[in-house]
């Protein structure tokens, strides 16, 4: 009797399962001969369309306009007030209105994914958002950071009493931005995750909702940002490190003084980002041989660092590959099959319900792991290279006679302008000219 019950349950289950697999409708839809009821249509939903593409081009147009204005305000008009107004506009438009998507920082990931994943093609908007600020930086320096980036803007608003970060600390902390950039590219290229978007600190403010952890972290950064100006831009922003290198080459650079520097030291402490470099002192003759030896040692250390970084990065492939959903799933299924885990997750039961062979899943996971192994080498050696160069660069001395804005670190905010007496003279002469012009009109 019991056996019969089992058989009947089995038959019932297999009928139901067959129904699911072959898509047979368990309850045939009625034809309503009696009442003549007409079926409502589901097509209404297709009339709810996404944001029209034309608005995406509008975003690009606003980006170009903001970049141009920012460059003009900083380099030509030399007006902090105008940059500030533009910055607030960008915060409102790209931040609160567009809810922080799309942004050039995140577009790095779309770009890397589109290179490595043939099924994913980049949209024109994404490529323009990535490239345009880079091109502007090649010409005008980091004017994107000054007046266009909403993440920079929200931090710039809270700068209260900036303290000076020692240059060695600043340089070491900045290594994190390089790691972040490399990791973001690796995770995006393997199709695992867009970590820049996932761990965006300020997007919860723009959307006025978000994960609690990120909201708390964002608040922490804003509080830190009162005393360490723009911490995200300086130490974390992965796009910032690209802009840094490009702005070293930029055609026109931000200058503190509109004229020749008179070395009055008035601007010395005006930069909240520590981007003003002092004139160099005479080369110390004592210890010259010693520093040469040190430099030689550091240069020899560079390949070692690159190798160690690569080795370390590659050996972490197991933990890194867990960012990919397929690898996570494969590991979970493996553990469940080994009997090490008794409970199933939504993901593992969903996979089992599809009936796909487990071997295929394992194969996919091992391919992804291999990608991470190779990518880990690249990522690690890149970080090793950056770390090595960071050690070498302080040994290189350059002759500077003026107070200058360091083109790499300068965020082109224009705070230093008003500290320069020559700038005051320029403004005065401008207003005098204006007065003369006004007098003429009268």
């Amino acid at each position, binding site marked *: 009797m019991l056996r019969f019950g089992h058989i009947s349950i089995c038959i019932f289950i297999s009928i139901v399962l067959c129904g699911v697999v072959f898509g047979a409708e368990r309850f045939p839809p009625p034809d309503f001969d009696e009442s003549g009821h007409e079926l409502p249509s589901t097509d209404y939903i297709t009339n709810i369309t996404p944001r029209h593409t034309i608005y995406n081009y509008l975003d690009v147009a606003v980006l170009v306009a903001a970049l141009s204005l920012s460059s003009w305000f900083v380099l030509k008009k030399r007006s902090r007030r105008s940059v500030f107004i533009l910055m607030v506009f960008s915060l409102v438009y790209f931040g609160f209105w567009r809810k922080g*998507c799309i942004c050039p920082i995140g577009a790095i990931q779309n770009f890397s994914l589109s290179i490595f994943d043939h099924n994913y093609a980049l949209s024109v*908007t994404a490529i323009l958002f990535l490239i345009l600020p880079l091109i502007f930086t090649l010409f005008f320096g980091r004017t994107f950071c000054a007046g266009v980036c909403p993440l920079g803007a929200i931090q710039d608003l809270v700068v209260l009493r900036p303290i000076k970060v020692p240059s060695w600390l600043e340089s070491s902390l900045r290594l994190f931005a390089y790691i972040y950039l490399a990791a973001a590219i690796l995770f995006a290229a393997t199709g695992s995750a867009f970590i820049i978007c996932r761990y965006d600190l300020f997007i919860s403010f723009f959307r006025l909702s978000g994960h609690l952890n990120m909201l708390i972290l964002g608040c922490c950064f804003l509080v830190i940002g009162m005393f360490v100006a723009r911490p995200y831009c300086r130490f974390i922003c992965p796009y910032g490190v690209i802009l840094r290198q490009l702005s070293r080459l930029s055609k026109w650079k931000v200058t503190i003084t509109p004229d020749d520097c008179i070395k009055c030291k008035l601007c010395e402490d005006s930069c909240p980002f520590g981007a003003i470099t002092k004139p160099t002192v005479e080369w110390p003759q004592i210890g010259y041989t010693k520093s040469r030896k040190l430099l030689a040692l550091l240069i020899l250390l560079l390949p070692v660092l690159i190798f160690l970084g690569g080795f370390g990065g590659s050996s972490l492939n197991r933990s890194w590959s867990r960012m990919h959903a397929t690898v996570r799933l494969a590991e979970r299924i493996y553990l469940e099959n080994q009997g090490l885990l008794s409970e199933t997750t939504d993901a593992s039961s969903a996979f089992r319900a599809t009936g796909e062979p487990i071997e295929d899943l394992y194969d996919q996971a091992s391919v992804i792991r291999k990608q991470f192994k190779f990518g880990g080498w690249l990522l690690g050696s890149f970080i090793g290279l950056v770390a090595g160069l960071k050690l070498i660069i302080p040994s290189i001395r350059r002759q500077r006679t003026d107070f200058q804005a360091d083109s790499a670190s300068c965020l082109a905010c224009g705070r230093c302008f008003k500290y320069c007496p020559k700038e005051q003279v320029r403004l005065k002469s401008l207003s005098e000219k204006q007065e003369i012009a006004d007098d003429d009109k009268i």
Partner: protein
Amino acid sequence: MTIEKKSRRKFLKDGLWGTCLTCLAVVAGAFAFKKRDDEKVWQLDPNKCVACGNCATYCVLEESAVKCVHAYAMCGYCDLCTGFFEPEPRELDTGAENQLCPTGAIKRSFIEDPYYEYTIDEPLCIGCGKCVEGCVAFGNGSLFLQVRHDRCLNCNECSIAAACPSQAFKRVSADEPYLIKKAGHT
């Protein structure tokens, strides 16, 4: 000597500058011509969906962009609708204790004996997928979830996609932004 040195540095710098600019232009050009693509939007494949409930909780919007859709052509118009009623309803009526939907977003209306029509009051729907789960498990699977593009912010990385256990979320062309269930397909 110093003049020569300066000009050499300047020459190298200019060369590097030109190279960078050309590279950027080439990249932009190559992408614009070769891999030009439509804008992409997020959508979930209802055939992969397991109605886990993540859509309701993981969306960055307070009220999820995912809501339920009813493919009426697939619906069996059952009296005992497993998408509408709790597993063991006390009575087959619209009493709140009998309903599966936590917000009462499904309206049940009598058509003819023994058929009832179930329509979704969309402003109330939170995309939890409880009705979808019931309908797929025991019914025809005519209830399914879809991302509403008037609500979706189209985040660069969809938070629900990152949390989706069955990897049902994918980027689809903005020209055809919905994956509607049709009769005859599971």
